[in-house]
């Protein structure tokens, strides 16, 4: 079984979650726990970097749907970056690009946050 893993770091004062491996109905709860922890600690400017994520199923997308309102209601956002084509295709099929900021590079997400918090 391929592992799923999440690393947490801070860049320019924003919370970054790096995802690794495969995100499916089995591993989605780990992402959910990581997001919940950030929100409980009132951390609301969150970047999720998909560079090392090889695969995503709808259970993974469901996690972003469940928590985006909580984050936006405390003045933050979840911005998604560095997806490979296969992963982006799933977000695109379900219409995420109109409701979420999805960037090719993490730096673009940082810039957007910096502009929004000016």
């Amino acid at each position: 079984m391929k592992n799923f893993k999440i690393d947490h770091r801070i860049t320019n004062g924003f919370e970054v979650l790096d995802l690794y491996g495969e995100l499916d109905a089995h591993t989605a709860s780990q992402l959910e726990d990581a997001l919940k922890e950030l929100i409980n600690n009132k951390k609301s400017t969150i970047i999720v970097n998909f560079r090392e994520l090889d695969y995503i199923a709808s259970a993974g997308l469901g996690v972003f749907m469940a928590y985006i309102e909580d984050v936006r209601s405390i003045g933050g956002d979840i911005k998604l970056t560095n997806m490979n084509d296969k992963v982006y295709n799933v977000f695109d099929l379900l219409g995420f690009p109109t409701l979420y900021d999805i960037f090719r590079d993490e730096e673009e997400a940082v810039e957007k946050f910096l502009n929004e918090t000016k």
Partner: protein
Amino acid sequence: MNKAVTYRKKINASTQNLSDVREFVSRHAEKHGFTSRQVADVQLAVDEACTNIIKHAYNYDASKELSIELEFDDEKMNVTLTDQGIGFDVERYKKPDLKKQIARKKRGGMGVYLIRNLMDEVNYYAESRENVLRMIKNRN
């Protein structure tokens, strides 16, 4: 025409087996000459269908089993999933209204939409004691 080739796998209804299922699907689809995009489509469709069975048909009862059959011929790949649980509605495949779902903090309802989008043909039969989901991916 060459004779069709069939592969079968049985798993217990637990989400921890999903990665094995994806590996089973991709290994055989690649061997039979499907493109990487086609392999990715079938992998995701089968994952979503198995997830639905585990969740809705069996309510996460890992003692229950579901079977996966892959059949390859010159034109297509046929995927058949069989379970003995509670049937679910694969006819409801409207694109989920993300905006509404987000506002209501509702998730789900995306699997069937994806399956219908990723596969060329999808049929579902609830037989006397079995539910059978048949999906086709054409080579061209």
